């Protein structure tokens, strides 16, 4: 090659290569555990009961994006985004008995409603993700107040932008009248010093409207590329009301974080899967900018092992933690295992999760945890099944 030509074309490319190498070296981190797993039982998960809810002309299983069991009213309640309303079903008959149109309170189909919680028969709180807005709605009066759970004042990286899902629900402490939610601020692209400030838990006092952010990511997340919102960043949680503990499952952490909601202090408890002992972050370093595309991140996450939701079964006083097994083919097939932990979060067993159920969509009731049954649900019915365990005789 002519040296002059090389200078014109080759040198800029060489410069880009060197800058890329200096700025974006491999920052991959392997989170590996070396604990010797000792579990008591060899169990098998099976479906022991199934419940069916008939859907009306405006509902489908996928339009019901959020649900809760209202213990005091003995109702199953579903948020329907197709018509921006909450459908209530009787817990015994499973018949729809009421439909609350949220549009009459000012919410619109353009609101990005993610969750709700009934405080009593008349009042409920509603969370709108589009501006992190929590609203107190009185059915008799209307919206009493709205408040953003995210503020731009001060350093935004130590704030939390809540993301409410069926695996990270709104939590209500009725004695203190506090609301809790989890989420995160930003995606990837932070220096270690900034990343270490990022929190995942927001506490909101319904009376004083005071906000508090707590619980950082585990230290091994800091300054690494954990594939952002499409990957390992969104934490999952469950609430143990009796102990006032929130248990957080970070997707890349073999431990569970147990948060005492009275002190907002946390401790780690090992809850690793038998199916894998390591989880690796992406190669690309998130130093100045994150150049990895959302698709690359999603693919990386799909092809990696990770942890999923954790749910507390108050009826049996046990926890379920889901492990998502790597899908190297990167197709739509998913395989999960279910880790069973006792009331003190000691590992009891792990077995395959029934593949007709969706582990990310469960509902806790007085009679256990019911998982969304995708195989039996159809456009006319939404179906949930309860998982039970039996010992395998060897």
């Amino acid at each position, binding site marked *: *090659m002519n040296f002059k030509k090389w200078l014109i*074309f*080759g040198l800029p*490319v*060489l410069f*880009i*290569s060197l800058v890329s190498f200096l700025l974006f070296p491999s920052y991959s981190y392997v989170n590996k555990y070396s604990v010797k797993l000792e579990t008591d039982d060899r169990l098998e998960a099976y479906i022991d009961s199934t419940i069916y809810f008939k859907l009306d*002309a*405006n509902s*489908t*299983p*996928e*339009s019901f994006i959020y649900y809760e069991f209202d213990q005091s009213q003995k109702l199953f309640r579903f948020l329907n985004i*197709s*018509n921006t309303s909450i459908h209530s079903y009787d817990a015994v008959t499973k018949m729809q008995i009421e439909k609350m149109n949220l549009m009459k309170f000012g919410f619109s189909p*353009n609101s*990005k409603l993610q969750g709700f919680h009934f405080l009593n028969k008349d009042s409920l709180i509603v969370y709108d993700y*589009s501006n992190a807005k929590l609203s107190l709605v009185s059915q008799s009066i209307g919206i009493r107040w709205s408040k953003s759970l995210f503020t731009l004042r001060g350093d935004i990286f130590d704030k939390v932008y809540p993301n409410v899902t069926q695996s990270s629900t709104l939590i209500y402490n009725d004695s203190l009248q506090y609301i809790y939610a989890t989420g995160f601020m930003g995606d990837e692209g932070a220096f270690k010093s900034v990343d270490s400030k990022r929190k995942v838990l927001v506490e909101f006092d319904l009376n004083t409207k005071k906000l508090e952010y707590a619980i950082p990511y585990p230290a091994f997340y800091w300054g690494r590329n954990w594939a952002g919102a499409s990957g390992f960043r969104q934490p999952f949680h469950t609430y143990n009301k009796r102990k006032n503990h929130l248990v957080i499952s970070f997707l890349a952490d073999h431990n569970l974080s147990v948060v005492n909601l009275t002190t907002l202090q946390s401790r780690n408890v090992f809850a690793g899967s038998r199916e894998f002992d390591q989880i690796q972050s992406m190669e690309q370093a998130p130093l100045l900018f994150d150049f990895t*595309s*959302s*698709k690359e991140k999603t693919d990386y996450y799909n092809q990696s092992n990770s942890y999923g939701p954790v749910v507390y079964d108050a009826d049996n006083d046990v926890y379920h933690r889901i492990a998502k097994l790597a899908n190297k083919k990167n197709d*739509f097939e998913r395989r999960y295992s279910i880790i069973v932990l006792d009331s003190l979060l000691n590992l009891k067993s792990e077995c395959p999760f029934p593949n007709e159920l969706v582990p990310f969509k469960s509902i806790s009731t007085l009679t256990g945890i019911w998982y969304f049954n995708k195989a039996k649900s*159809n*456009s006319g019915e939404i179906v949930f099944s309860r998982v039970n365990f039996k010992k395998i005789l060897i």
Partner: protein
Amino acid sequence: MRNILIISILSWLTLTSCTSNERDKKESLETLLKDRYNISIQRYKAVVLIPSSGCNECINEAEGLLQQEFNKDVSDYLFLITGYEHSKTAKIRLGESALGKNYILLDTLSHFTPFINNGKPIVYRIENNKFYEARIDYSNNIYTLN
């Protein structure tokens, strides 16, 4: 000198890979439409892929363009609605009549979902058998492609 050349070639490959990605995308979209739905893309001036969820504002805009075309028996746009598991959900959202048109395809098996990035609709203008990414504009109550 040889190392420098190798690095330069690798960088050049990296820089040009975007172009080949676009070409691959177009080819796989064309193949998918031909094989699964027996649709020849050359009939249309644009393809609009609309996900069921993601960026609300962007989806509303793309659905606005779709609503605008509703009354036509034939359209220059091919709409691919993806991400819905049940056609009933799409009917509730878009209206019963929308799904009877041959230029609106409802993909309940999520074949087109991998084309979607960041939950945003994708619009390709087709000119001389080539794909160009386009934007939807809304002014004077009319949706157009830019």
